[in-house]
């Protein structure tokens, strides 16, 4: 039976009121435990408060400062219960970027309601976009969106994707079949490591909410702490990024026994190098290591288990309820073994996201879509991805648009030109490096440039390396030739 979020949470709380719903940690790192009964009560109260505050004459959304805290988890659940579209915002977003994101929300919504730490909705006026938000015509208008996520997708340019709604519990589809195939069990104990404002941890939290999990929220990443939490709470299911995986493998002697409770570790968000993959397969055994490839846009997914990967190292797996087609630049299908653009099609297109700011996914007439990744299929339908052909820098799964970093740097009075490129990083895969041309006679400390970027950009976008150069390479047309500066290509290819 398909149920509303409100009903589903109430049912879980009634069935097992004293079982733990959430474990969080305060600023003093003291443990905070909340039972399903208490959680359901707090969510219902906050949802009622949000519903009462809502101005129903205009479309509205809820904004939750989504660090991995109990109030954030309750705030997200409350908005979903009230069926108000919810946007989990990185609490560390600098003001300029935050304004840009709220501006994007303003194209669709008239009001935002910020859920504060006490879970009281605070109304904020969103900057009006070029198209004035349509007035809500009826209750149906309000719940066309379940949630919104900030995503750099594959381009690094800030944008917001909207997931059609409202969110429902459907025993056949919650969580999705692919997640259930990746070791998920109803009522499991799950550790959420990545931040709730990221797509993968956010959707894992929604599934946990609807599927009666006990969720442990790790407020910030530390490899030894993740390992300790898995052991202490006998965690059964865990989703990580390759950056998390590399950090944990760097710990001295990670003890396989500490992971005995774990049924599955699913990794997403960025390409995982072979050494890290093998390290985890050694640690957990191949049957407990799963990898999911599929952009936030929801055009399709592939899944691969460790044993399949060992048989075909480097693959991201086969399409899961997803058809894959490799097309050449003219849009013609090309045979197995040949590299082209990866298009995917899935029957569950109901979950497909669109873009608030009008950036579209490329689609074929028969419904195949792409985010621009390149790759090839083998004869058995396993997908292998090729290096991405744009300049986006992937910092531990976070996408950074070099243009945005360069613009921030050029905004500094001592800087006349700047180029941002990826350089390798032991655990994050890559980080941002900047080549700077200073004004004649000017000098500036690297830390000052970093702090300058920190006031304009999210932390992971701040360059970790600064090199002062006399000029930056540009083509005759004035376009920056980043490949001339990159000592390293993200996937190991050497530039010409």
């Amino acid at each position: 039976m398909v149920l509303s979020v409100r009903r589903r949470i109430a049912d879980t709380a009634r069935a097992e009121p004293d079982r733990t719903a959430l474990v969080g940690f305060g600023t003093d790192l003291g443990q905070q435990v909340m039972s399903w009964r208490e959680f359901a009560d707090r969510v219902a109260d906050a949802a009622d408060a949000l519903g009462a505050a809502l101005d129903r004459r205009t479309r509205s959304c809820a904004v939750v400062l989504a660090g991995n805290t109990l109030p954030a988890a309750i705030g997200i659940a409350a908005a979903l219960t009230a069926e108000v579209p919810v946007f989990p915002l990185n609490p560390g977003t600098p003001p300029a970027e935050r304004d840009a994101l709220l501006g994007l929300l303003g194209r669709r919504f008239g009001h935002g309601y910020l859920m504060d730490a006490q879970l009281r909705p605070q109304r904020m006026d969103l900057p009006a976009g070029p198209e004035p938000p349509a007035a809500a015509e009826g209750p149906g208008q309000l719940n066309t969106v379940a949630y919104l996520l900030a995503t750099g997708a594959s381009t690094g340019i800030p944008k917001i994707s909207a997931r059609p709604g409202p969110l429902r519990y459907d025993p056949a589809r919650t969580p999705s079949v692919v997640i259930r195939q990746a070791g998920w069990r109803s009522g499991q104990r799950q550790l959420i490591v990545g931040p709730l404002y990221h797509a993968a941890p956010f959707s894992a939290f929604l599934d946990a909410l609807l599927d009666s999990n006990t969720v442990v929220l790790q407020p910030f990443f530390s490899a030894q702490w993740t390992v300790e939490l898995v052991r202490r709470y006998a965690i059964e299911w865990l989703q990580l990024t390759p950056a998390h995986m590399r950090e944990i493998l760097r710990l001295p002697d990670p003890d396989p026994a500490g992971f005995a409770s774990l049924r599955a570790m699913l990794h997403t968000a960025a390409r995982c190098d072979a050494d890290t993959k093998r390290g985890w397969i050694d640690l957990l055994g191949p049957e407990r290591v799963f990898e999911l490839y599929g952009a936030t846009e929801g055009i399709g997914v592939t899944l691969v288990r460790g044993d399949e990967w060992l048989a075909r190292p480097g693959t991201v797996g086969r399409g899961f309820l997803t058809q894959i087609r490799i097309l050449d630049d003219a849009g013609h299908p090309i045979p197995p073994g040949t590299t082209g653009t990866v298009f995917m099609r899935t029957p569950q297109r109901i979950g497909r996201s669109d873009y608030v700011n009008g950036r579209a996914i490329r689609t074929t007439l028969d419904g195949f879509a792409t985010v621009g990744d390149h790759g090839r299929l083998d004869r058995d339908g396993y997908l292998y991805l090729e290096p991405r052909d744009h300049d986006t820098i992937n910092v531990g799964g976070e996408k950074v648009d070099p243009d945005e970093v360069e613009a921030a740097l050029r905004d500094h009075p001592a800087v006349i030109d700047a180029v941002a490129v990826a350089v390798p990083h032991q655990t994050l895969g890559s980080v941002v490096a900047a080549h700077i041309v200073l004004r004649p006679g000017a000098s500036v400390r690297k830390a000052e440039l970093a702090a300058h970027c920190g006031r304009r950009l999210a932390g992971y976008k701040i360059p970790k390396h600064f090199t002062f150069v006399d000029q930056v390479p540009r083509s005759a047309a004035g376009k920056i030739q980043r490949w001339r500066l990159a000592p390293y290509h993200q996937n190991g290819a050497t530039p010409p």
Partner: protein
Amino acid sequence: MNPALNEPIDTGYQRPRDPAEIWLARQWQDILGFAVGIRENFFGVGGNSLDAARVTDAVMVEFGVQLPLNVVTEHPTVERLATLLRDYAGSLSGPLVAIQDGDGTRPPLFLVHPDHGQVGPYCGLAHALGEDFAVFGIQAVGLYTDAEPRRTVPAIAAAYVDTVRAVCPTGPYLLGGCAIGAAIAYEMAALLDDVRLVAAIDHELLEPPGTGTVRRWQQPPGRSDLPRILASWQERDLVPHDVAPEFAARSLRVWQANQDAVRDWRPSPYTGPVDVFGLPPAMALPVTAVQRIHECSTDGRLADALRELLG
């Protein structure tokens, strides 16, 4: 997740003031990739949670102390984090203080403390030289322990030669210092083979007067009122606010010992050149030594001139 970003992050470069801050600033420089002042926010200059874990790891390795996992979030500046380390920082009381690691392409510069015994003022010079240059400070014995200060320049120099040889068994050696530091460096040069540089540096070039708050150490005050002296040092940002109360007494004792030593100094023969930056030191360097004067009208010029000599 930059919970500490609301705090001011553009404080500019402020140098570390004691061994705990110097040690921590060097760790940050290694981890973040560039030098950071003691009041700059770790996350505001691009540090992330992985970098923060590296800081706590480094503390564990150096001091055997497991700090809480969120310690950098709660104490996001060198100044604040150092307050947690002072109790464990006994291992940093020795003469050798690593200020900057450098890129390993040239021998390190050893800078011997001035009369007050501390090496904090050299951190700004290391920063101005640039991160490629390895710099060690040599601080006076007896500042952070109750050890008795040595009282003659040759005895001090002999002890520091052992200190230098422990990290660099062979030359070439690059030496320098302010005030008594110049005299000690000269005496060390007479004891070492393959000395490439003896730099006598005018302390006013290190911390020029009239720039913001007066951060200069003036003449040692009398020992009449130690708490008041300590308070005035704290007021002028010369020492951390949580410095041990006995620091004032130790400091005055070191200061007095150094002034006695330099007054009684009879220079040993040394035939190499001495490079003088700014005004020549108050004590007479022997006429046997060739003195090369570098004017250095501003502090930036000191680093430029020194960098040229270091190659």
